[in-house]
């Protein structure tokens, strides 16, 4: 009966087996070389063989792992929001510059994601970004990116 239930290690092991084979297929033109002059494909081939075998080992023992449904995904919406915020910030980072992007990121996370008071969120965001900008720019002489809006 337990064979029907999809378990944690079925997914994990399967992912590793499939991933390894995929990468192996993608590295077809890398020469393995010989012992006297090992090629660029030697280590990848060895490692991929290892991960494929271990992936199968996980699959083999998967019957004993907890069922997939037991994994708690309640933190996923929060994680997704943070990832989206970060992705936006990263995409805009060099265009908008440090000050604009980071105060927006902080504001977005504190106000939009965490639902804190808007005024306080705005003040904290701008203040922190300004301090960080000053520390890196003047103290460490390693300026953060400047964008279109500020400087």
């Amino acid at each position, binding site marked *: 009966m337990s064979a029907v239930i999809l378990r944690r290690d079925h997914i994990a092991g399967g992912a590793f087996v499939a991933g390894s084979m995929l990468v192996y297929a993608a590295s077809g033109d890398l020469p393995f070389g010989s012992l006297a002059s090992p090629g660029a494909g030697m280590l990848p081939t060895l490692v991929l063989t290892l991960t494929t075998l271990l992936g199968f080992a996980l699959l083999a023992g998967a019957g004993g792992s907890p069922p997939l449904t037991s994994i708690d995904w309640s933190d996923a919406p929060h994680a997704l929001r943070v990832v989206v915020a970060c992705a936006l910030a990263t995409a805009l980072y*060099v*265009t908008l510059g440090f000050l604009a992007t980071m105060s927006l990121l902080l504001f977005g996370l504190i106000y939009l994601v965490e639902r804190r008071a808007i005024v306080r969120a705005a003040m904290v965001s701008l203040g922190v970004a300004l301090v960080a900008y000053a520390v890196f720019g003047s103290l460490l002489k390693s300026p953060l990116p*400047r*964008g*279109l809006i500020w400087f």
Partner: protein
Amino acid sequence: MDRRQFVAGSAAAATLVAAGPSRAQDAYPSRPITLINPFPPGGAADVVGRPFAALLEPLVKQPVVIETKAGAAGAVGAQFAASANPDGYTLLIHIVSISGFAEVDKLFGRAAKFTRADFIPIARFIADPMVLLVNDKQPYTSLKELVDDLKKNPEKLIFSSSGLYGALHLPTALFMQAAGIKMKHLPTNGGGPALTALIGNNSNVLVSSIAAASGQMKAGKARALACFGDKRAPVLPNVPTLKELGYNIEFYLWVGLFAPKGTPDPIVSRLREESRKVAISDRFKQAMNNIGQDVAYLDQPEFRAFWDADAKRVEDAVRQIGKV
């Protein structure tokens, strides 16, 4: 850390430059100039670039910032500079190996990411002839002994280099071809590790710049057998040149300043003029002497002619090595 620390984002960072407000009507330069150093700090481009930047600042009355964009043996920084806005605010300090990348790409059937035509040469600052070294565990006292022994016992010796198709590998390959000998190649990931391998006798032969090896030569840990210059180096008066020994090879570790293709002429001539002032100044001479170099300044026309000739040597060497 190792070379992998120095990943740099060319494409995305290019937007950074493009995003800067362009105020072409202002007198150049009206904002800080960025000098791209495509090698890890401490390398030849860095030790020349830093004094240069420090002396250029008062002349152009703007900060001159060195930005390290190291990676892929200098290709990442060069590509970044090649794709930068040609407004004179992004310049490149590069060494002899800049000529080889396009040829290597051709070898692997890849589209070249940049070629020599993407850069305008501005000035050459130093040109250090390479020397062929053996460590103190080797019996050879002349190049002839080394060549004769290797002809009898091919692949008996190992040479180290800073990496495949790098500035230390190319002259070695040219020499091996001219002398008709073969050695095993031990590539490492930098000039320092290559020298370490020689001194630790994990490799037996190394072609290096004089400055990098002078400490070890003085201490007797490494012995120079031949010099790659067109005449003997003043610091090594007893070391014959390859030309004297009958091999028609020259190879220098030179450092030059480049601007991206399309940089307006007035800006280029301004940069030429200021570079000349820096290069002939006593303080620059002093700084170069400190790192064991003589200033070998060439202005744009001479540098261009030198670069064209030098690039032929480098491309020959790359083709000679071929795909490993």
